[in-house]
């Protein structure tokens, strides 16, 4: 341990070992935590229209939904959770497709930001296009999921504790002249 190189090598090796151990400890201590929380979803408005989707020439059903959302996710954050990616997912079944899952809205909450959600009459971020024209009269299940992004470790896809179902109207919305 008498040359600069030997000392630099020792310091470097030690810092790498310490960093790796701390990262592993972060992962181990937060791996088994329960990340589920209750969320309340409501639907304020739901109508359906039949319009041309952007990239295809066919007309498809477009659902227009305004929703409300209440949830408190403050205690999901810990030393290993750097971000939560929330997404509101609509699930339904049609004669053409037995599984349909569409993300209508998403939000990123970073550690330190306000994690209390209280949205009302919120419009969706993404277009609720069906793969076809089968939305009328369909029962749609809305649920709030979130993805726990850690500093190091496993990325949990947290399942919702409850969901909210609503029925899309039987008829297309009429354009007011």
């Amino acid at each position, binding site marked *: 341990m008498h*040359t600069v190189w030997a000392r630099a090598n020792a310091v470097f090796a030690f810092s790498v070992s310490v960093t790796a151990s701390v990262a592993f400890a972060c992962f181990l201590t937060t791996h088994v935590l329960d990340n589920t929380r209750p969320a309340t979803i409501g639907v304020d408005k739901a109508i359906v229209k039949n319009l041309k989707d952007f990239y295809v020439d066919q007309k498809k059903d477009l659902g227009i939904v305004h929703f409300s959302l209440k949830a408190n996710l403050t205690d999901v954050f810990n030393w290993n959770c750097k*971000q939560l990616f929330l*997404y509101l*997912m609509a699930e339904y079944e049609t004669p053409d497709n037995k599984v349909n899952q569409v*993300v209508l809205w998403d939000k990123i909450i970073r550690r330190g930001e306000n994690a209390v959600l209280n949205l009302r009459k919120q419009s969706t971020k993404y277009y609720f296009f069906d793969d076809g024209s089968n939305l009328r009269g369909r029962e749609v299940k809305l649920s709030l999921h979130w993805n726990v992004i850690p500093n*190091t470790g496993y990325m949990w896809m947290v399942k919702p504790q409850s969901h909210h179902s609503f029925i899309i109207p039987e008829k297309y919305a009429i354009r007011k002249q």
Partner: protein
Amino acid sequence: MLSMDVFGELRRMNKRQVYFQFLNFAMIVASALMMWKGMMVVTGSESPIVVVLSGSMEPAFYRGDLLFLTNYQQDKIEAGEIVVFKIDGRDIPIVHRVIKLHENEDGKVKFLTKGDNNEVDDRGLYKPGQLWVERNHVVGRARGFVPYIGMITILMNDYPQVKYAILGLLGVFVLIHRE
């Protein structure tokens, strides 16, 4: 400091020791390969570890972060999951989130992806005429995450001289060093 010791050692080595050094080197390479192939089998993915190359998933993943993937066929992909997929004819894997998923009665699934940090979905990235990503395009699902480590790979790709220099140095040290 280095040169005098190293060449002195080299001259003192006989044929057997030289073969031994080469065998040592081959063992290290073979073990590394075994670990990589073993991971491929356990996770079911052709590429169980990927480095994030772009900033399209910020602030979750930055350039240089490492992702651990699994690709179990029996686990269905759901909307909201982060998948790594390849477009036909392009080598670079894309790490984005599934925002829409449709599965018909025959079990055929198609999905639409979007990067968290992008304004629009990925249809501009797909092949011309391709509107959806299918299961066979998917290399795996991101399950684990380690920050920063992949920067070495990006450095070596952007500056190939660094790659050759490191490999050259490593080769010299392993062959010359007695222990």
